């Protein structure tokens, strides 16, 4: 056998179609034929992809026009996540997709802020974040040259799941991807090599291929057929149930997700142009009826179409096994917070492209892929673990969350941050230094000391800069359009 020429992608919903678009555009010209076997979708009208900023560059690589995407899906922008404590134990914080402050005297902002705080500065760290300020004022933020010089700012989307998948599907078909619809499917293996040779759709059609992608989400049909083991992360994450529902659109939908922490879990509100998508993560110790009541109360909205799903975070021992690569939840199931679901799909695809087999044997590519993808997944898990482990919220759910076991990498990261305010940033991090700063400071991890380089700058210079930054933020926020107006003016 030579390099694969017949790629078969089995799956459903947006992951399968994102995979089809990426693989077709990259490998179609190299003579790889892409076939999708599409299983019935599980997304409902309440489902939304809350995406991280990394999706936009992938879209751009696929030549996806953002205006058309948002028009077709009626999605919205998000500048970050607002974390609120409904149990009234901890202050709120905003995790923005942008930098905070600006370098002063060639030294990072955080050490200057830490020192100023020590000397009585009463302004919170996130108040120096332009992206957070714009979001909290209901604005969208569009960078101009001044803003780009000041720091970086980015955004994700809230994409309603059904129209997003439909739109990606249309594009894939136009690009030449073949599709076979199936109600069910199972894998057929070569007895001698153990590799997959075909997929039987509805027990009647055999779709043969020489390379396969498992995009079947948590079902992980192909991974299970190949007998790939899975490590459960159940101990690390207290929520094993997820309720999704929708509510009427907000009159002025903000460009962020609002995450509200109650005694038995959290509720997130994701505005789109269609509706307000609400999800509630909780433990099965709480009944589903009770959970719906809790979600309704925390959201403060009338919820419709509520559905409950099991959630079981965990990681496959290897995402690439034989001639099959699992992407998204088939490779790694995350906790529902932080929009990691689509990021897991993207990680799987982006790492696969430069390692896609060029010959029959691909053991070295496989081991490189599995090593990097595992590291990327584990760093996301660390980010989520930190949110649970460091929480100060009230209630048994959150008390148990504080006992979450932490990886050695995360222990080091929190330790170094607490000691010095410096962030250990490993290879393959999906979350940036700015993301980690928001998270750790937001949960009250206050560094004991700061980078000594900040001590060189005279206090009056720092004070002047702090005032200048606040003024700049105020001025820039005022000149931004409200999110709703920004959305409706795009065509």
């Amino acid at each position, binding site marked *: 056998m030579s390099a694969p020429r017949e790629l078969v992608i089995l799956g459903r919903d947006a992951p399968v179609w994102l995979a089809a678009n990426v693989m077709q555009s990259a*490998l179609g010209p190299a003579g790889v034929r892409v076939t999708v076997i599409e299983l019935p979708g599980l997304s409902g009208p309440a489902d939304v992809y809350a995406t991280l900023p990394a999706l936009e560059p992938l879209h751009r690589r696929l030549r996806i026009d953002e205006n058309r995407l948002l028009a077709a899906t009626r999605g919205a922008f998000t500048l970050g996540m607002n974390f609120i404590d409904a149990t009234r134990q901890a202050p709120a914080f905003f995790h923005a997709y942008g930098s905070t402050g600006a370098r002063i005297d060639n030294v990072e902002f955080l050490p200057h802020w830490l020192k100023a705080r020590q000397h009585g500065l009463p302004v919170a760290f996130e108040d120096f974040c332009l992206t957070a300020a714009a979001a909290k004022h209901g604005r969208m933020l569009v960078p101009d040259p001044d803003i780009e010089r000041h720091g970086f700012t980015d955004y994700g989307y809230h994409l309603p799941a059904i129209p997003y998948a439909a739109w990606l599907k249309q594009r894939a078909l136009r690009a030449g991807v073949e599709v076979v619809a199936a109600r069910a499917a199972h894998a057929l293996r070569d007895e001698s090599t153990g590799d997959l040779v075909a997929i039987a759709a509805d027990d009647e059609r055999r779709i043969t291929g020489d390379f396969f992608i498992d995009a079947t989400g948590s079902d992980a049909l192909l991974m299970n057929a190949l007998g790939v083991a899975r490590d459960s992360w159940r101990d690390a994450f207290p929520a094993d149930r997820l309720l999704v529902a929708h509510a009427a659109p907000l009159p002025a939908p903000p460009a962020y997700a609002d995450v509200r922490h109650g005694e038995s879990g959290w509720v997130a509100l994701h505005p789109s142009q269609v509706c307000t998508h609400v999800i509630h993560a909780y433990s099965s110790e709480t009944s589903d009826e009770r959970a719906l009541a809790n979600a309704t109360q925390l959201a403060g909205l009338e919820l419709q179409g509520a559905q409950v799903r099991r959630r079981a975070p965990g990681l496959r021992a290897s995402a690439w096994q034989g001639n099959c690569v699992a992407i998204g939840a088939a490779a790694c199931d995350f906790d529902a917070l932080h929009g990691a679901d689509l990021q897991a799909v993207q990680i799987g695809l982006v790492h696969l492209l430069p390692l896609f087999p060029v010959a029959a044997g691909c053991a070295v590519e496989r081991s490189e892929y599995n090593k990097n993808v595992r590291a990327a997944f584990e760093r996301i898990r660390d980010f989520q673990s930190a949110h649970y482990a460091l929480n100060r919220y009230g209630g048994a759910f959150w008390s148990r969350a504080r006992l979450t076991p932490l990886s050695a990498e995360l222990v080091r990261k929190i330790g170094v941050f607490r000691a010095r305010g410096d962030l250990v940033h490993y290879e393959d991090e999906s979350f940036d230094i700015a993301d980690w700063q928001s998270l750790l400071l937001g949960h009250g991890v206050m560094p004991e000391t700061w980078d000594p380089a900040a001590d060189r700058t005279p206090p009056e210079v720092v004070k002047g800069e702090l005032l200048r930054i606040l003024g700049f933020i105020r001025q820039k926020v005022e000149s931004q359009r409200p999110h709703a107006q920004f959305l409706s003016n795009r065509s």
Partner: protein
Amino acid sequence: MAPPPLQLVIVGGGSAGWMCAAACAQLLHPARYTVTLIESDDIGTVGVGEATLPALRDFNELLKIDEAQFMRETQGTFKLGIEFRDWDWPGEHYVHPFGSFGLLWGGVEFQHHWVRARQRGLNPAPLEDYSCAVRACRRNAFEFPDFKNPRSTFFGYAYHFDASLYADFLRRWSIARGVRRIEGQAVDVALHGETGEITGLTLKSGQKIDGDFFVDCSGFRSLLLGDTLGSPWEDWSHWLPCDRAWAVPCERSADFTPFTRSIAKKGGWIWRIPLQHRTGNGHVFSTRFVSEDEARATLLGQLDAPALMEPKLLRFKAGRRAQAWKRNCVGLGLASGFLEPLESTSLFLIQKGIQDLLRLLPAPETGSRSDERLSGEYNRLSDEIYERIRDFLILHYAANRRHGEPLWDHVRSYELPESLRHKLALFESRGHVPYFKDGFFSRDSWLAVLFGQGLMPKRYDRLADLLPVDELAAKLHELHARIATQVDGMPTHADVIARHCGTGAALRQVGT
């Protein structure tokens, strides 16, 4: 109330000690840290040419050192890369440039396009012809790169200079900025009874120096980190068997290269570093495979101009201290480890150590001077960089075809570190080189040495097929011509040096 300043004590002058002192003087507030450096005039440094990496420019920038002045005072020259002669096979040579080969086309790295062009019979020029830096090296030419808008392929540059003049330069610079220098030799180290931290030193003269935090720059002696605190030595000589070097300067010759030269020999390799006033030479070798006398003769036979003094012998061993930061002491330079100067990493490792240390240095407020959260992170970073450089150095030896020569047969036959074996397999399969966020050594550097040592990927990334073949041929042709035009227009290295920083120009006073 403000706490008293933390007293930093640096033990040992030389490049490591004075680079550290200079960075402390520039970046730390004198009311929070005092800096004392102890050095002895009796311990001479070897005045050989030192070759560096482009990162040193960042260090100079951090210190706000004027490039032309620095080069004048250290007899400095420019460096675009390293030429390796006879490494793969006698008569073969290649350049590891500080720059890229070709361009990214369609988001796909150049080596894939180049391998594809070969396999599709387009007869592309040799890979090195697609590097502006390599072609400049071939003509002994130099120009300052335009980092933002390179005219053809990207390149950076580093320096060659006289290491003892560099230490002198930084000494004057640091003292002018408040570093206290104490002449003397430490003979005794006092430890705290309970914590085991270093509390002070006694000099030969009997003078006592107290301190809160100590930087060991005592060279191979590793007086504090090794001798006193017992940070264990991790021996890497089974991979890197060279254990001696003869060093000798000779007169400047007509061959004024903008690159370091490294020539493989029976028992090791010879370096050649052009400075403004003379050329630095040395022979790194393994006593397992060649005698000291024979190596000395080999070195002298290789000089292209009369020697200026008797060769000096240096003894070393490849390896490092398992903990570069232990308790309240960090080792820099030879006190923390040694990797042969094959890729000019000595000053880079010092610089990296200093920059990490200054970020993680204990604060005057904290009672303990040995916070394991900070030292643990420092040591993690140190492990990572040492191991990456180690693998890169081993690659030069392991991928050779000098059959029948005992040293070269030996280095071809031993078991490689798993991390390196994996990299070689990936490259051989498809020309893929993993990317590191911290970028060291960069992908381009790995490619230069992998291809340079005669390895060739069997296949290429399929994403390269995106480009139609005739378009690929046209692009290769155009790039080749563009690089040639750029390099043809470059002045010679000698001209640029004379204009920019020739030592004929009047010296400005340092430290003013």
